[in-house]
């Protein structure tokens, strides 16, 4: 993050408010969100700092942060915010913007995981865990994590070797196509 951050205009806060549908500008920095955040210790920016940087228009600082990808979407911040800002929803909007703008330094693993998960849903209508995890591992290079858990999971029937397709898989593919189109509408 740069040492001195000066106000860069309202474009960022306007866009984040439009995309998330929540009043980010109402944040008065009480830090209640950061205090209750389960992943605060791992974050490079606390959630209240993300809100402030959005006010200031510091787009790169926010979109290149690890914090937006570390958010576990647990909704504690959204539930407790005294100004009723949907802070977890703001994190979603920022993740989507980071991917659209190919922001540097954004933690790639969460985005790769999301892509692998949704790829599986698009194909089968449901998540096929083994296929999804293989795709994630190949794309992220994180090949060995959790491999030791597979044999027991297989033995207990907790992971399958073949996908369980939904009968509506074709419908899901069409929904994906149209949802992507919808997001491109002005």
């Amino acid at each position, binding site marked *: 993050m740069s040492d001195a951050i000066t106000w860069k205009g309202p474009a960022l806060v306007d866009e984040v408010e439009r*995309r998330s549908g929540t009043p980010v500008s109402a944040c008065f920095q009480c830090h209640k969100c950061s205090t209750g955040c*389960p*992943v605060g*210790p*791992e974050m490079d920016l606390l959630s209240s700092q993300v809100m402030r940087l959005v006010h200031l228009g510091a787009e790169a600082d926010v979109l290149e942060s690890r914090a937006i*990808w*570390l958010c*576990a*979407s*647990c*909704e*504690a911040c*959204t*539930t407790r915010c005294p100004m009723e800002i*949907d802070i977890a929803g703001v*994190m*979603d909007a920022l*993740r*989507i913007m980071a*991917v659209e703008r190919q922001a540097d330094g954004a*933690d790639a*693993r*969460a985005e790769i*995981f*999301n*892509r692998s*998960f*949704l790829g599986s*849903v698009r194909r089968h*209508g*449901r*998540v096929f*865990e083994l296929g999804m*995890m293989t795709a*994630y591992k190949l794309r992220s290079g*994180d090949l060995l*994590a*959790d491999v030791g*858990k597979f044999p027991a*999971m297989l033995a*207990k*029937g*907790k*992971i*399958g070797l073949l996908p*369980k397709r*939904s*009968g*509506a*898989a074709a*419908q*899901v593919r*069409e*929904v*994906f196509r*149209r*949802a*992507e189109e*919808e*997001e491109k509408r002005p």
Partner: protein
Amino acid sequence: MKYAFFPGCSLETTAWDFAQSARAVCAALGVELEDIPDWVCCGSTPAHASNASLATALPVVNLQKARAMGHPVVTACASCYARLRTANHRLRADAAECDRMERVTGARYDGDVEVLHVLDLLVNRLGIAAIRAQIKRPLSGLRVACYYGCLLSRPPEIVAFDDPEHPACMDDLVAAAGAEPVAWPYKTECCGASLAMTEPAAVSRLGHRLLSMARLAGAACVVVACPLCQMNLDLRQRDATAAHGELPPTPVLYVTQLLGLALGIPAEELGLGALTVRADGLFAGMKVEG
């Protein structure tokens, strides 16, 4: 009582024991669950973190299928539950969003199909008194930490069947089953399950924090109502203790498994053998086969 059941992806695979025990408990209590035909994935966190239209459209596809069945929807996964309820919430408030979803899914839906979590069904539709009357093998002396996690009670304007900071419905259910729910402070702290693949260090820290607090509060086991919490605290328990310090192995059961045992359902019909940390020891000395 008949409901349209939305199993969701986890309940078909990693949480088949939750599905089996939820179905067995509902059957024992006279609740009929009929699966939504050709249900599809709710999209979970990857959808809402990637594409806002998709995050609403996938639940809507399922809710449209459920509407044709004419029953309220019941689901057991906390994430599916939150996604289905969130979609309804968005559509009820916003005609433009209904138009958008009609373009994406090809059919009109205005958010009117009721969605319940199985806990809500048990505690608020059937009622604690009616369940207590059916208990055949009270789990006397078993001390239990009821863990609600994040999405069963948050955010309250969307889910709202219990208090968002101090939920009690699972404690009431566990007490009705004759066990003893312990008071502990981390009932609604997130376990970080959505980060399990991508941020294992954070997930180990969070899991260890929860399990060690449950032990400190005197619990012999943890009871959950979410497939992601269960997998995180059970399958990844050894990772957590290896990274942050040894703890006695702590079984993490689905609330429907615990309740099922108390209702007299045999352990093998509740999928207890699928737990990573075995629960057999909990029921030694009770007239319950663990």
